[in-house]
């Protein structure tokens, strides 16, 4: 019997069984940022501990950093302090740190892959649930809490129980106007936000195999929204082509050797999975959320669900969501007025996201009432987009082109919704209050759907707005 990727990576990183029955697992790459990590250094100090493997940890700032004026000290004194604590700690413990203006700062889950730090077969963790993103390269990539950040700093290991693995096969091909974001929103809609609890998701099938690495990252990124602690895609030639030549990837003969090792982690043909789900790519439409969980999603041409279609607590969820979103059961979602459009985040803040939007909005204008933000995921993405003139295309269309950061995905920096504004957003969470206003409303969708909403001033079908067929 063969093994799946999860089992192989787990096996290669297992240190021992702990007395509790948990497994001690070695972590190959630890990414840290200014919001969930500074406290961990304080915990180390309290216990008089050192960082065990500083060369396997890498830091940047993303959550709190403003995307307009990044001049230090920051206007927000607490944000300034958190960044300073991270900066001081990385200097003290000899940890690589990419601050703003280093050329490599950005959202951790954009920076890791683009520098080639993320490589197949690794265990990766970060104090951020969207660490799942790195699974696109065939890694076990886990979001962790701050005490676990402490554990990794001090020991480079975590105490864990193994997950089950669910293989999700997406067959066939996608229709025009349907993107990787729609694929993952569709999966979460089908399996639910609790469906993945206890599982790692393995994404497979021709739709996944035909995706670029950036598209694969979008899919794996939102595994956590489906309840799965992590998601991954088996490494293949697309993975290898992406990695070749990146700064942290070996070159020459060492690269060839690495490739052989990387590919060996892919699930064997005769592997087994704890569960399998098959989805047809042709069934996936441009998808948007209507509620306050990422699973409360419909195709853009469907109507908003009726609470009477459910019962008990599930019915309450729909009632509460509609009340919060100020939407009515039975109405079309299309045509819902939009106040803000946001393109960015670790889900959809990479070059291809901005490129695909620029191709569509060139020469068009965002509706005057809509505040539109484009926030590149990293300084590298920003530089590449500028080199292609994408920033100008966005600005001419009426978008603000910002500096890199998490921005309005979680609104810890000054980029926030006001009052009950409704935001068409390429981010990953539509939770109550997520975008910075306790009454703000988020509708998740793909970047090109956000572009369509920005131009129409309402939720619209990207295929109709831009004549895609």
């Amino acid at each position, binding site marked *: 019997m063969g093994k799946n990727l999860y089992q192989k990576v787990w096996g290669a990183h297992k240190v021992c069984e702990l007395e*509790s029955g948990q497994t001690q697992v070695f972590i190959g790459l630890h990414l840290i940022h200014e919001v969930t990590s500074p406290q961990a250094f304080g915990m180390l100090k309290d216990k008089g501990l050192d960082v065990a493997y500083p060369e396997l940890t890498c830091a940047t700032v993303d959550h709190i950093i403003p995307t307009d004026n990044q001049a230090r000290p920051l206007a927000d004194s607490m944000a300034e302090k958190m960044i300073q604590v991270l900066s001081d700690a990385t200097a003290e413990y000899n940890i690589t740190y990419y601050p703003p203006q280093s050329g490599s700062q950005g959202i951790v889950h954009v920076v890791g892959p683009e520098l080639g730090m993320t490589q197949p077969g690794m265990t990766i963790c970060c104090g951020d649930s969207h660490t799942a993103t790195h699974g696109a390269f065939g890694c076990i990539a886990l979001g962790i809490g701050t005490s676990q950040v402490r554990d990794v700093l001090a*020991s480079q290991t975590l105490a864990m129980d193994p997950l089950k693995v669910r293989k999700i096969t997406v067959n066939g091909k996608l229709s025009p106007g349907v993107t990787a974001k729609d694929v993952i929103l569709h999966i979460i809609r089908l399996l639910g936000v609790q469906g993945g609890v206890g599982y790692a998701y393995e994404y497979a099938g021709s739709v996944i195999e035909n995706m670029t690495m950036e598209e694969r990252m979008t899919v794996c990124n939102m595994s956590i929204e489906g309840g799965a602690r992590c998601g991954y895609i088996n490494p293949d030639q697309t993975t290898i082509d992406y990695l070749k030549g990146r700064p942290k990837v070996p070159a020459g003969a060492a690269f060839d050797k690495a490739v052989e090792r990387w590919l060996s982690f892919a699930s064997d043909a005769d592997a087994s999975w704890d569960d399998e789900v098959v989805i047809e790519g042709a069934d996936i439409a441009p998808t948007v959320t209507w509620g306050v969980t990422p699973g409360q999603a419909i195709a853009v041409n469907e109507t908003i669900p009726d609470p009477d279609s459910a019962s008990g607590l599930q019915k309450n969820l729909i009632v509460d969501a509609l009340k919060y979103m100020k939407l009515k059961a039975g109405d079309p979602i299309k045509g819902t007025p939009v106040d803000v459009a946001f393109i960015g985040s670790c889900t959809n803040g990479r070059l291809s996201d901005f490129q695909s939007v620029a191709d569509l909005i060139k020469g068009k204008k965002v509706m005057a009432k809509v505040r539109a933000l484009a926030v590149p995921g990293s300084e590298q993405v920003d530089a590449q987009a500028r080199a292609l003139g994408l920033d100008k295309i966005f600005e001419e269309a009426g978008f603000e082109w910002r500096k890199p950061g998490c921005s309005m995905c979680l609104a810890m920096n000054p980029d926030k919704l006001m009052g009950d504004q409704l935001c068409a957003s390429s981010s990953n969470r539509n939770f109550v209050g997520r975008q910075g206003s306790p009454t703000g409303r988020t509708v998740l969708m793909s970047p090109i759907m956000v572009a369509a909403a920005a131009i129409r001033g309402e939720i619209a079908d990207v295929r109709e707005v831009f004549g895609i067929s």
Partner: protein
Amino acid sequence: MSGNELTKINGTAVYIEGNDIDTDRIIPARYLKCVTFDELGPALFFDERFDEQGGSKHHVLDAPERQGASILISDANFGCGSSREHAPQAIQKFGFKAVIAGSFAEIFHGNSTTLGIPCVTMADEDRARLAALVSEDAGHEVMIDLENQSVTCANQSFTIAIKNSTREVFLQGKYDPLDALLANGQAIAKVAKSAGYV
């Protein structure tokens, strides 16, 4: 014996109804601006409890008869979303010692365990009965028995579930794994080498 063994947790309880309660609701992102977790208690469920002017929304957590509760009861997929440890930290600093729910999001569960907050699950029907008992009378004591995997309240007994390894770490008082992890330095170094990291 480490002195931290946790076998029974008892006290009054609060039921917060709803599936899929995410960590953004448990603690809004603006309270993540801190370099220690010490002051997070008052921020628990802040936007559920107070309006934008700071006026009380009369949330169950603020009911006078619920003050001092030590067990939080909720429904399925509690703690989903962001990995912020600030969520269980706020729950603990507010005064809760354990959480009973239909199910837990994994990261929240792991964070809570490390902090010494047992997260136990209970079947829907039982949980509804327990929630009703607690909601009827704020004085009802709830007792979680990790050893026997049961909860008692008002002379009624319910079965709870908890992963074996999680149960063990509480019974052994070793829910903070750091010492156990640090004890294996040589084995760690061996894997660092065999897996190609050093």
